[in-house]
C-alpha cells in the first residue's frame, strides 16, 4: 500500500474503542478522499484482533495492529516508542489523536520525538493551500482551534514538516454511516518493548460508567449561577425531567457544587449540539458558548437583560427562574 496516508491513533480503554477515535476515523475518511489517499488506523493494546477487524467498517483501508502485554494499558513511554516507529515506517502525511487525557499525554511526546508540529484541541480540520517564503504548499492541513480562552479562533498550519498532527476534541466531528464488508486489511505487528521503557506502573484505575449522556441528548436543560443555590438548581433538574431532557451546567454551577462535573457544557466540558438547549440563569461566557452555540434552538432564561447568552439565543425570556420554570413545567404538562 502507498504511504502518505491519513492516520488516526485509535484509543482503546480495556478493549473499548473511544468515541472520539471513531469520530476521527470518519473525518479521516473525508480528508483522505479529498487528498486521494488511504485511511490508516494505529491500534495499540493487547488481545484486540476482533476489535481491529471491526474498525474496517468505518472505511479504514489499513489497521496497523500493535499488540503486546505492555500496551494493554496506556503508559507514555511504550506507546510513544511504538507510535514513533510506526509513523517512521508508514510515513503518513497527517496523524490525528483524540484530545483525551491519553491523546494529550501521547501526542506531544510523539511530536517532540519526531520534531514535528502538533495543534491541540482542534474543533475543525480542513484541506487548503498555504504560502510561505515564496513557496505554495498545496493541500495541507488547516488545524482550526479556539485559543485565548475561546476569545479567538486560530488556523494553524505546519507545512514544512510531515506528518502534520493534531488532537481533536470529542463531539466536534460528525459520525458517518458504517460500511459493513469494507475491503480494508489488518496488519499485525508484535512490537518489542525494552524494559527501560517500563518505568510507569498503573496501581489502580477507576473509570465510572458514563451516567450522563450530554453528547447524544436531543434536549438539554442547563443551569448556571442564576440558579442561586442547590435548591434553585434542583428546579432546573425538575424541568429537565419533565421534558425528558439531559441536565447541563455551566462551569460556575459545577464549581459551586450544585451538580456533578459530568454535566458541564463548554470549552472545558462537553461540546453539544442538541435540538433544543434551554439555558437557565447562564450568563453565556465565551467558554460556555463554545460548547453549545451550535444547538438548533436556544432558549435563554435570565433575569439580566444584558446577559451575553441573549445574543446567541433564538428565544429570550427575561425573568426570575423561580417563576419561569414552574410556569414552563405547568404549561408543558397541560399541553402534552
Amino acid at each position, binding site marked *: 500500500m502507498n504511504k502518505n496516508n491519513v492516520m488516526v491513533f485509535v484509543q482503546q480503554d480495556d478493549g473499548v474503542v473511544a468515541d472520539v477515535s471513531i469520530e476521527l476515523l470518519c473525518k479521516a475518511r473525508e480528508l483522505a478522499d479529498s487528498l486521494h489517499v488511504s485511511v490508516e488506523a494505529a491500534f495499540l493494546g493487547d488481545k484486540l484482533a476482533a476489535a481491529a477487524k471491526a474498525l474496517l467498517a468505518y472505511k479504514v483501508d489499513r489497521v496497523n495492529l500493535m499488540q503486546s502485554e505492555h500496551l494493554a494499558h496506556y503508559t*507514555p513511554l511504550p506507546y510513544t516508542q511504538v507510535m514513533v516507529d510506526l509513523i517512521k515506517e508508514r510515513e503518513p502525511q497527517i496523524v490525528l489523536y483524540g484530545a483525551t487525557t491519553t491523546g494529550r499525554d501521547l501526542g506531544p*511526546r510523539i511530536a517532540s520525538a519526531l520534531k514535528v508540529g502538533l495543534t491541540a484541541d482542534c474543533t475543525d480540520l480542513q484541506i487548503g493551500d498555504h504560502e510561505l517564503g515564496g513557496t505554495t504548499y498545496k493541500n495541507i492541513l488547516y488545524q482550526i482551534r479556539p485559543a485565548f480562552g475561546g476569545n479567538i*479562533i486560530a488556523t*494553524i498550519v505546519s507545512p514544512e514538516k510531515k506528518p502534520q498532527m493534531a488532537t481533536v476534541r470529542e463531539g466536534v466531528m460528525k459520525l458517518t454511516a458504517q460500511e459493513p464488508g469494507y475491503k480494508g486489511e489488518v496488519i499485525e505487528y508484535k512490537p518489542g518493548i525494552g524494559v527501560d521503557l517500563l518505568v510507569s*506502573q498503573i496501581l489502580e*484505575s*477507576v473509570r465510572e460508567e458514563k451516567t450522563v449522556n450530554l453528547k447524544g441528548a436531543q434536549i438539554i436543560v442547563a443551569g448556571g449561577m442564576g440558579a442561586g443555590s442547590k435548591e434553585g438548581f434542583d428546579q432546573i433538574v425538575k424541568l429537565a425531567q419533565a421534558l425528558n431532557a439531559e441536565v447541563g451546567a455551566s462551569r460556575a454551577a459545577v464549581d459551586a457544587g450544585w451538580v456533578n462535573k459530568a454535566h458541564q457544557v463548554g470549552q472545558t466540558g462537553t461540546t453539544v449540539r442538541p435540538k433544543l438547549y434551554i439555558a437557565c440563569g447562564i450568563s453565556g461566557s465565551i467558554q460556555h458558548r463554545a460548547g453549545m452555540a451550535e444547538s438548533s434552538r436556544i432558549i435563554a432564561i435570565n433575569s439580566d437583560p444584558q446577559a*451575553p447568552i441573549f445574543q446567541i439565543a*433564538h428565544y*429570550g425570556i427575561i425573568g426570575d427562574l423561580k417563576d419561569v420554570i414552574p410556569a414552563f413545567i405547568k404549561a408543558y404538562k397541560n399541553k402534552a
Partner: protein
Amino acid sequence: MGLNIVVLVKQVPDTKNVTGKAMKDDGTVNRAALPAIFNPEDLHALEAALRIKDAHPDTRVNVITMGPPAAAQVLKESLFRGADFVALITDRKFAGADTLATSYALSCAIRKIGAVDLVLCGRQAIDGDTAQVGPQTAEKLGMNQITCVSDIAELDAKKRTISARRSIEGGFELVKAKLPVLLTVTDEGFEPRPPSARRVMMYKNAVASASNDASYDECYMNASACADDDIIALWDIASIKADPEACGLAGSPTKVKKIDSVVLTAQDIRMVDASESGIAALVHELIADHTIG
C-alpha cells in the same frame, strides 16, 4: 533526603476574566488590555513542590519561566511563597516559539540546573490551553511523565519512586513511577499557599521590572538590559546553550495562518413574555413543531 525540583511557570493574560474594559467596540477582545497573572495551574505545581520541601527539608525548589522581562513578576511571587532559586529565560530569539520550541528552551535551562529528580508544571496555560509543553519537555529530557496529577500519594526519596493520582475521563488512575519524572498538575489539588509576609519583605525589591507590559507578546529584550541584581537569574540563549535554529519562530513547525476574533453575533431573537400565558404559547409552539414531544 532532599530532592532537586524544577517548577516551570508562565505569566499569562487573564483570559478567564474578560471584563467589559477588555472588549473592543466590535465585540472582540483586546488581548493587550488583559491583566497578566501567574498561570493558575502553575501555582498548584509550585505548591506541590513546596509541600515536598516541607516534608523533605533538604529539598531545593528551582523555579523557571520563559518570557519577556515583565514575566519576572511570577518569579517574584514564587520567591514570596518559598522558592529557593528562580531564573528568567529571556531573549529576543525565543519570540514566536510554539510548544516544541518552548519545550526545547525549557529543557536546555533544566539541563543547566543539573541533576533533577522532579520537574513540575501546570497541566496547561490558560492563554493557549494546549497542555503540550509539559510532555514535550519531558521527552526532550528523556524523562518519564505523569500528566493531570491532582495528588501525590507517596514519594519515597530513598527508593526514588513516586505514586501520583492522575485524573482521567470519569475517574482517575494511581500511577507509580521511578524518579526522575515530570508531573503536570491540575487545579484539583495542592491549593496554593499565600505569600509569606517575611519573604515578601525579603524579596519585594528583587526585581525592578514588574509592570504589566501591554505588548506582552513582543517585548523580548536582551537579558543584560534589565539585569540589575542577582536574586533573579537572567538566562539568555547562549547561557542555556540552546541552538538558535531550534528556538523561537525558527524552531517552530507550527505557524499561525489566520486569527479570527470571536464576535458575539446578535441573531433574530424573539423575546417571550415571562407571564404564564407567554410561556404557554412558547411551549405550544415547541410541541407543534416537534422540538419537544
